[in-house]
């Protein structure tokens, strides 16, 4: 991001600094990267199985859903919003897509295609509503998405009558656990999404204005841009990503249940914020979000391998989350001086 640039580039604002810029870019996200590295080193030394390729691909799979949700959340938080409804929306998208996926008349190909459209479409509609209602009425997105949290969950339960949908095409399920050179395909999809989001946020006019809105809405409005459009777009993108996450969830777990995803919003927000994005908007990167999601995933996996009791594990998770951001602060102070 532009904000990443550090003071030393000051006197050389020419093309020659491009490589210097990427260095700085790395350094900016490095704080949380260091925390991640420390965690990885610790678990590698203290547990037997942590660094096995099998476990790594486990971790990557386990990160995927949260990462995809967190990418969308990054867009929303960058404009100064928040989306509490992603967990419920995940369930709603999943049951809608699951219903399509189990229509017996469709070929596998058709079923999966239509289900994907249905999942993303559902996410887009919910996300659009989130964005439109908050932008049009000028309501805090916290409340609007809290409403949507209830609406989407209720709708998911209502359409399925609280029943789980299952029996998806075997090839669809196989896809959920496919590997490419030891890396889960679903994680690769998430990585591609990270790359696209990074590009959109840092290289396009659209992304630039999202940052602008997060920083100073009024200045952007007076510069002739439609706040409505960008706000709605951010929430809609988040919704679309929920739809994608729902498809991956179904491929992994082989079911679509109306009660999945409870509390996922907190994990997604945590990934974004641990990744250095400001909850006030206007500042942060999707690369940070990737690192944040990795921290959460590594921690959950490593602490189990470490053999801590569940309750201790929960406590330690809390402590490490706080420590991770403290380390990030330290880095900030050091690079600032």
């Amino acid at each position, binding site marked *: 991001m532009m904000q990443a640039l550090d003071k030393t580039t000051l006197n050389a604002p020419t093309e020659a600094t491009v490589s210097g810029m990427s260095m700085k870019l790395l350094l900016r996200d490095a704080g949380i990267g260091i925390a991640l590295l420390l965690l990885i080193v610790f678990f590698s030394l203290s547990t037997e199985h942590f660094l096995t390729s099998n476990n790594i691909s486990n971790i990557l799979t386990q990160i995927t859903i949260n990462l995809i949700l967190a990418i969308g959340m990054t867009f929303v938080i960058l404009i100064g919003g928040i989306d509490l409804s992603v967990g419920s929306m995940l369930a709603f998208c999943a049951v809608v897509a699951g219903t399509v996926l189990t229509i017996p008349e469709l070929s596998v190909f058709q079923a999966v295609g239509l289900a994907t459209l249905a999942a993303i479409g559902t996410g887009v509609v919910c996300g659009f509503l989130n964005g439109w209602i908050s932008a049009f009425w000028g309501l805090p997105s916290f409340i609007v998405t809290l409403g949507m949290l209830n609406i989407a969950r209720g709708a998911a339960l209502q359409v399925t009558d609280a029943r789980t949908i299952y029996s998806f095409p075997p090839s669809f399920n196989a896809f959920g656990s496919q590997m490419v050179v030891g890396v889960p395909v679903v994680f690769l999809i998430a990585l591609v999404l990270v790359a696209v989001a990074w590009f959109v946020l840092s290289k396009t006019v659209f992304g630039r204005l999202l940052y602008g809105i997060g920083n100073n809405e009024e200045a952007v409005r007076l510069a002739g841009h439609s706040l409505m459009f960008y706000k709605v777009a951010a929430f809609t993108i988040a919704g679309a990503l929920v739809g994608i996450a729902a498809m991956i969830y179904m491929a992994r777990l*082989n*079911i679509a249940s109306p*009660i999945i995803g409870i509390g996922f919003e907190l994990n997604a927000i945590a990934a974004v914020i641990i990744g250095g994005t400001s909850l006030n908007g206007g500042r942060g990167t999707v690369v940070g979000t990737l690192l944040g999601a990795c921290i959460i995933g590594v921690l959950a996996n490593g602490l189990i391998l470490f053999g801590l009791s569940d309750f201790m594990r929960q406590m330690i998770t809390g402590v490490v989350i706080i420590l991770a951001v403290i380390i990030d602060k330290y880095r900030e102070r050091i690079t600032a001086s």
Partner: protein
Amino acid sequence: ADKPVVGLVMKSLANDFFKNMLEGAEAHEKKRGDYELKAIGMQNETDFESQLNGVENFITQGVDAIVIAPADSRAMVTPLKKAMDAGITVVNFDVSLDEQAKKDAGIDLAFVGPDNRGGAKMVGEALAKSLGAGGKVVILEGNPGADNAAQRKLGFEDAIAEGKLDLLDSRTAHWETEEANSVFSTMLTAHPDIQGVMAANDSMAIGVIKALDVAGRSDIKVVGFDNVPAVAPLVKDGKLLATVDQFGSQMAADAIDKALEVVAGGPKLEGWVKTNIELVTKDNVK
């Protein structure tokens, strides 16, 4: 040779029932002394993913057996198949995996556990007997979408049909005491003529009983499920007519025994190995 390792996958450990179960298993490990127990739980009851992750982690660690109380009767089939393919012995307990899902995945897996529906029916019948035909009852359900919640509701409904009770309302309180208290207080306002309450677990029954205390309605009968320690005094007082004990502390230990038999080269398990359930009333409460 090393002792065999058993991976025990449970639901949320954050309640008395599963905590007892875990302790039963741990005591069992000490008693037998010929295997190593690794146990994991999940964050909350709908956190299917963490159970899936737990199974995957156990496969990674190369345990000899996985003994699992599945959070969802269908979602866990695929990962368990993966475990079986990796040569791990799998035993299913507490909640039975879905038959159809097992068939679809091409696996055959025994179930060691109680009959939730039967238990609910048992306690429902106790209520029906006490109220007589035409008694007006309400149900407090567990988490919608949870298998045991669905089974227990079906059991209650069986008892209602057989006992010719009149079902006024059925609502979820998500297994929770506080929510049960609020929801039931309101149901009581809407239906002052309630005579009996079927709560799908004891935590909710506690909330209901408290609401009855406040409303001064000692005429309404309540039944619960699980026989957690906190309800013992209530059963003694007659505030809780009956509850069901599934002997959770025994259940995991039994399942582990079965798994170890197979690991030691015994025959494959089949079918439903039913574990004990018992109706707990004033007469037999401890």
